[in-house]
């Protein structure tokens, strides 16, 4: 039973790492601001969930596991809000005439 | 493998000098403060890399803990707690000065401020 949990957690950790990597590459490659926000939020939510679940599996039902769960919950709340706030302020800033270079190369 | 042990101190030296270089050459006052921040962060690294003991854990001894656990050295951590707060206080004061200089001189570039003072 130990090995099974180990294998699953390793899969989650590697998967999470992969997702973050993809998000990073996406951040660099994408042309403008909004697509970049999309790529970044991918790394934020997807990657984070996979990594923390992997750690929870490693930690098992201990105090650390509970703490990890709390962190996961916190992340689930904040990262999407952050993505939204960034996009929203980019749009409103453009209306207010601030020189936001959205279409950078 | 033994050389890797000194890597921390090399990074300390490099960061120290990036900070010093930034403070000396960058005329912008805010950039100088950022350079100062890096400079102080390097010193924190120097202190903390002293306290690690192979196989040691954080110096927290819960009640009735076994006697043979190796702990890292708590003293540099205490010193650095103080140094971090000193660093942030200096930065806060520096930034307040930057704001006041901006209002008084209209610019926060050192060379412009000096020239404005000289011909006054």
């Amino acid at each position, binding site marked *: 039973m130990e090995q099974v949990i180990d294998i699953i957690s390793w899969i989650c950790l590697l998967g999470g790492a992969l997702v973050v990597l993809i998000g990073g590459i996406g951040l660099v490659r994408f042309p403008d601001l909004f697509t970049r926000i999309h790529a970044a939020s991918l790394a934020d939510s997807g990657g984070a969930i996979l990594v923390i679940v992997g750690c929870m599996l490693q930690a098992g039902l201990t105090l650390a596991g509970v703490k990890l769960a709390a962190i996961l919950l916190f992340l689930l709340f904040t990262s999407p809000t952050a993505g939204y706030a960034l996009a929203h302020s980019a749009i409103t800033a453009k209306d207010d005439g601030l020189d936001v270079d959205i279409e950078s190369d | 493998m033994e050389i890797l042990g000194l890597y921390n101190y090399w990074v300390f030296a490099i960061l120290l000098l990036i900070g010093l270089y930034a*403070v000396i050459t960058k005329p912008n006052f805010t950039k100088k403060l950022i350079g*100062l921040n890096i400079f102080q962060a390097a010193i924190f690294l120097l202190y903390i890399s002293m306290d690690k003991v192979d196989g040691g854990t954080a110096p927290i001894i819960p009640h009735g803990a076994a006697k043979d656990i190796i702990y890292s050295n708590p003293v540099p951590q205490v010193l650095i707690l103080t140094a971090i707060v000193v660093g942030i206080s200096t930065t806060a004061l520096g930034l307040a*000065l930057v704001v006041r200089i901006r209002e008084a001189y209209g610019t926060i570039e050192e060379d412009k401020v*000096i020239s404005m*003072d000289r011909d006054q």
Partner: protein
Amino acid sequence: MLAAQYPVLPVIVPLLSAPIAALMPNRSLAWIMASLVSALVFATAVALTVIVSAQGMISYEVGGWPAPYGIEVRVDSFSVVMLLVISGASTLALISGKASIDAQIPSDRQPLFFAAWLLALAAYSGIAVAGDAFNIFVFMEISSLAGYVLIANGPDRRALPATFKYLVMGTIGASFYLIGVGLAYMMTGTLNIADLHARLGDVPYLRPILLSAAFVTIGLAVKAAVFPLHVWMPNAYARAPSAVAVFLSACSTKAAVYVMLRFDFMIFGGAFAHHDVQFSTVLMSLALLGMLIGSAVAIYERDVKRMLGYSSVGQIGYILLGASMISLGGVSAGVIHMFNHAMIKGGLFLAMGALVLRLGGGTLDDLKGAGRTMPWTMGAFVLLGLSLIGMPLTAGFISKWYLVQAALDLGTLGIVLIAAILISSLMAVVYIWRVVEVAYFQSPQAGASKHQEAPLMMLVPLWAVVLANVYFGLDPSIPVDLATNAANILLEHAK
């Protein structure tokens, strides 16, 4: 009961009163509190002088923990000299500074100003009595931060960039000191000064200790405005409020020199054989350069406060010159000059404060005819100037006397030192006489006739300093005895 607590009182009392002063409703209440606390610290310093000259060194364990584990406060005659200088300068500046502070600082900012002043006083006293290397760093940071706040309150806008330059250089200096302490801690495992000295002897590797000594000395050289690293000091003192200039000029650079001497003599002195040779050659050359170039630049300076700043660079050179002779006579001459220079330079800045208050500016053109419109203040300025030059009947003469006498024992090198001392004294004659000529021989500018003498609150302390100067010129037994004991302590550690 309280007598046992004297070593720590100069630190804890101002610390307790600073938050209260910050919350004071009006400025005069804050001022009264600051002056009272400062006078109390001065009284404690005098009491400590009596105790130390009777019993020798006092050791006090903060928190009740034994020495290398807890932090130790150590008071010996060297630290007592510093305490007297610090608390004396602060009390003098506060009592006489009321008028100039009211003129230069808006009344709603004054409670904060006096709180910062008390913190600076507590921090400098903390440095003077500290026995733990890291503790000195913490108090040095408090004193620097409080110093930046005090200087940033300067009347005109040039105070801000001056404070910023002082902040950047001061922080770099303090950080270098921190690195030095860190390296020493890395090689010995302790932070207590006496313990460091004991354990440095048997450290296998020499190089980290050399590096630590270099970092500590350079860091403190920046804080002490030693010659090449002094660029922040003239501007900082010139642009600060006059009362602050009196306080800081008397003790901020001296506290750094005090720490440097304690470190180089008491810790690195005994550690490795040729340290004192390295130490004296480097410092002596810096001191000589500082004396000559500092005084030379002071001659061409139009703003009198900046001129006094550059002259301070020269005077710090004297102190270091004395210390770098590594002889009983030399080190005691350096410590005596620390005491005398604080008195002289504090008095000069006090006189400048009165002149700036009445004439509106500190440049030579503003001082035209000041000799007639403000005879008492200008009279005091001239007498203190004579003391700076080292004329007999003044305290400056005594320090010059002991310095030259100590230099004589060094043979031919001594001759070079004496030549340097005398040349820089003559340069001092030139830049003091420039002010006298402007004040007495040129007619005041148009519309200057309305100036009247400085307020009595400033004149009485000013002339108290002048009389103290003459008294210590005639009967220097107190500072000389303290300085000789201090030199003994420093040197017998260095062997």
